[in-house]
Each structure stands twice: as structure tokens, then as C-alpha cells.
């Protein structure tokens, strides 16, 4: 052991300065961390407020009747939004039946034909479509599915929502298919799989958990859409499950109740909004689980 070396004055001054600098850096770091954490909390604060407010105002009108009964005329108490809940579910089914196959197919094409001219333009246009105001989607569906038939319909509403899903689903599918290793594709080709079968049986199947997640996120997004339904599904005060008739939908019902002058309807609107947000919350949760399941089985190296 060498004897300890006593620091010179200069060295001591230097080390004190270093300590002060470190101290200052620690403080600045702490402040910045606090600011960023504040921003992060601020970002989710509106959701917490909305959810809290909905719970406070909507919970009281939420009862078994709300889910099972039809809306009552003004003046009568009670009643529920059974038709709107069923209507929203029907619209989601129509939208998925139209939007998912087209979206997944388009996404698979975009991933498999990455550099082709058609793929590049489709990719660009689908980004534009993704940013398109939803009411424009409603106008489109009205023009082609309402005007020619002369009446509003569930089908038109579902198609409008499905058209909104396509670009979202297409881009997630493209991403998920893109991360399937080339080696898997080659392994299938080397076994004598034709290209289309490789795409479906191996590539798409390997990416399926991610695609399911993307599809659920897309469904959660369109479930609460109102604008595309305004002049397509239109809403319905009566029980209807016909695809050819106007159909009730939760967001539409919430809207019409909220702008009504009646207190009873206002509280129903709050409850409707609460159910809607709970529905989206549940779908998002399922999507999270699907993602987690993928990572649980994906690792193994």
C-alpha cells in the first residue's frame, strides 16, 4: 500500500468545484424529471377527469333496466338504451366484417410487395385515409349506400365505420407481417410451400397475435364514432336489428339525449357515455392481453 497522497490546494479547489457541479446537475436533473413526470400525468389527467365525472353522473342512471329496456317517452321515468347497445354491437360486427378482411389483405399486400408502385401509392393513400375527417367517411357512405336506396340503414353505417378501420388495420398488419423473419418464409418455401401458402399459413399466422391486437384497437376507435353515423345509421328510437333499416347506436343516442331539454334524458346520456367508454376500455384491455400473450410465447431463445 502506497502512503496516501495529500491533495494540493489546486487539486482541492478543483474537486470542490466538481462536487458543486455535480450537485447543480443533480438538482437540474431532479427539476426536469419532475416537469416531465408532470407532463406525463397531465396527459392522462383529462381521461381520469372524464372517467370520474362519468362515474359520478352516469352511475346513478345505470341499472339493469338500462341494458335491457327500451327508451321511454318523455315524461315517463325509467327506460334504457337496450336498442342502442345492440345497435352499436351490430354496427361493430358489420364494420369488422367489411374492414378486417380488406384491411388485413391490403396490409399483407403492402408487406409482401414492399417496393412495388401500387404498394407505395396504396401506403400513401391509406395514410391520407387514416387522417380523413370521419364525417367525410359518412358522406361517402351516404352517397353510395343511402342515396341510391332512398333510406338510412345499419349497413351504410357499418360500411362507413368499416372504411375507417381499413387503413388502421392495413398499417398494423403491414408492420406485424414485416417483423416476421425472412428465415421463416424461406423455411416454408424450401419445404415446397407455394408463395401464397407461405404468406397465409406461415407469415400471416406468425403475425396473427399482433394483427388481432391492431384489429381490436381499430374496433375500439370506431366504436365511439358519431359523425360517420349521423347520415348513415341515423339512429332509431325503436327496436331494430334489420340491416336495411336505420339503427340506433350508443354515440348517436348520447348525442340526441344530451342536446334534449330533459333532465331524465341528460342522465341517460351520461350513463350511455359511461357504457361507451367502458366498452372501449374493455376492448383495449383485451388488446393488451393479446399483445402480452404474443410476447409470452414469442421469446424462447
Amino acid at each position, binding site marked *: 500500500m502506497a502512503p496516501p497522497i495529500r491533495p494540493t490546494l489546486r487539486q482541492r479547489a478543483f474537486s470542490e468545484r466538481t462536487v458543486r457541479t455535480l450537485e447543480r446537475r443533480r438538482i437540474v436533473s431532479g427539476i426536469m424529471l419532475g416537469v416531465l413526470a408532470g407532463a406525463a400525468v397531465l396527459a392522462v389527467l383529462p381521461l381520469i377527469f372524464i372517467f370520474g365525472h362519468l362515474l359520478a353522473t352516469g352511475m346513478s342512471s345505470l341499472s339493469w333496466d338500462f341494458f335491457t329496456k327500451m327508451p321511454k317517452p318523455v315524461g315517463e321515468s325509467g327506460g334504457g338504451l337496450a336498442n342502442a347497445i345492440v345497435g352499436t354491437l351490430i354496427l361493430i360486427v358489420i364494420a369488422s366484417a367489411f374492414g378486417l378482411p380488406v384491411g388485413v389483405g391490403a396490409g399483407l399486400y403492402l408487406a409482401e410487395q414492399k417496393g412495388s408502385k401500387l404498394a407505395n401509392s396504396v401506403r400513401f393513400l391509406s395514410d391520407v385515409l387514416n387522417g380523413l375527417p370521419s364525417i367525410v367517411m359518412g358522406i361517402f357512405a351516404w352517397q353510395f349506400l343511402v342515396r341510391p336506396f332512398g333510406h338510412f340503414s345499419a349497413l351504410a353505417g357499418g360500411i362507413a365505420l368499416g372504411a375507417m378501420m381499413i387503413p388502421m388495420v392495413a398499417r398494423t398488419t403491414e408492420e406485424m407481417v414485416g417483423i416476421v423473419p425472412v428465415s421463416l418464409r424461406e423455411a416454408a418455401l424450401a419445404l415446397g410451400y*407455394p408463395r401464397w401458402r407461405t404468406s397465409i399459413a*406461415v407469415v400471416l399466422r406468425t403475425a396473427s397475435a399482433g394483427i388481432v391486437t391492431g384489429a381490436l384497437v381499430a374496433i375500439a376507435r370506431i366504436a365511439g364514432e358519431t359523425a360517420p353515423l349521423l347520415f348513415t345509421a341515423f339512429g332509431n328510437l325503436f327496436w331494430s336489428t334489420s340491416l336495411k333499416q336505420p339503427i340506433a347506436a350508443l354515440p348517436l343516442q348520447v348525442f340526441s339525449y344530451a342536446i334534449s331539454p330533459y333532465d331524465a334524458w341528460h342522465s341517460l346520456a351520461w350513463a350511455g357515455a359511461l357504457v361507451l367508454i367502458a366498452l372501449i376500455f374493455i376492448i383495449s384491455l383485451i388488446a393488451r392481453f393479446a399483445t402480452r400473450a404474443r410476447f409470452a410465447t414469442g421469446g424462447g431463445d
Partner: protein
Amino acid sequence: MTRSLVVPEIMPRVRVSALDAYFGSAHAVKGVSMRIVDRQVTAIIGPSGCGKSTFLRCLNRMHETVPTARVEGGVELDGRDIYARDVNAIAVRTHIGMVFQRPTPFPTMSIRDNVAAGLRVLGAARPSRAQTDEIVEKSLVRAALWNEVKDRLSTSAIGLSGGQQQRLCIARALATEPRVLLLDEPTASLDPLSTQAIEELVYALRRDTTIVIVTHNMQQAARISDSTAFFLNGELVEMDTTNDIFTAPRDARTEAYITGRFG
């Protein structure tokens, strides 16, 4: 060119004549001719980038699956040109199995389904369920994996170790009874023990299978192959019995490579 005739009196399983392979304008394999003898292990050695993997991928028409890739020349399997106009690349690949550098089990499929994957695309020749089970067992036994997985055939193939996954891929390739098995550096990503297991397996398989193995490991080539081809810069420098290549190479470049002076 007569030097490429290894054992002239035996009819070759695969005959390659003046094969050129390109990636765009890059000339990866240059005028290679070779005869690959039935029920032997043929090793292809050479430094990185010498075109040995590309050459291997030309033997089952996998090379052309890469964009801008191009092949010229002929490859005959049992006397039939696999690049002939009326020959379907997909059909060729069901007769020539391939295993890659990294294990490639299909992650969404069980061990059983992985082995049976190649049987599913046989069309009319597709075996029944009972037959499939039989073939799966037989292939896993041949790949020396049966004892380790027989109790977990329906579990995911991802749960296997790297060496087991590679043997699973060999079982998968064997299931369709290919005439030739191509191995592209099959032990490059494995630990020494797993490597040994694969080498023993290859050595045992040559009793009834024709095997072509690309390896950058010269000891491996010396241990398990009957004949060895040395590639350099896309050309076949020399091919002979493994014994002769490693003890009495005729080309100075071969000698320099196997004695470790480059590569």
C-alpha cells in the same frame, strides 16, 4: 474439368453443369460443374462470401426467390434438369430438403405440426392422419430427437433448445423423403454439444440420404463428409474425396486455405 469427377463409375444423384448465379450484376457463382454422389455427404467449404451458400441455394431453386437473383446453367436431379421450362420450382423443393443456418421452427405450430408441415402441401400425395403420425415419429427418430420430444409433441416448438430446434428442422425436411438434403451451415449458431449431436446425425443419415453440407468449419467437413469441394471467389477450385482434399490437395489455394493461411 475432369477433376470434378469424384467417383466416375457411380451415377450421380445431382449433376451440376456450368452453373452461374447472380445477384443483380454481382456474379456470385461462376461456371461451377459438380457431381454429387448418392448416399454420400458432400461438404462445401470456403471463406465467407465465396458463393458456397448461393451455390447450395441453386440446387433447390431457392436462389431465385431473392429479388434480382438469376441462375444460368444446369442442375440435374437423377438425370432431370430442375431448371427446365416445364419443371415447377415448388415441386423441386419438395424433393430436395433444406436446413438453414439458424433453426427455423414455425413458432405458431406444435412440434408435431412442424414436422408434418411439408406433408401438408403434397396435394394428392398428402398422407392421412394416421400415416402422418407415423411419418412424424419416423422422421423424429431419424433426426435423433424422438426420445426427447415424444411426450410433448403437441407443445410449441419454440420451447425446444437451439440444438433441438435444428434437429426438428432436419426432421421436418426428412418427413417428405427428399432425395437430397441440403444443409446450409447447420451448426453455425449452435454450441459444441449440439454441434456434435448434429454431426453424428448427419453421419448416420448418409446411409440412406444424399447430403450436401455447406460449412465454414474445416474440421467439421473433415469429420463428416465423404467428398469435399473448395470454393473461392465464386469458383469451384477443387473437389475430391475428403481424404485427398485434406491430405493431398492439388491446388495451391486449397492447400493455403486448409492449412489456415487465409480465410
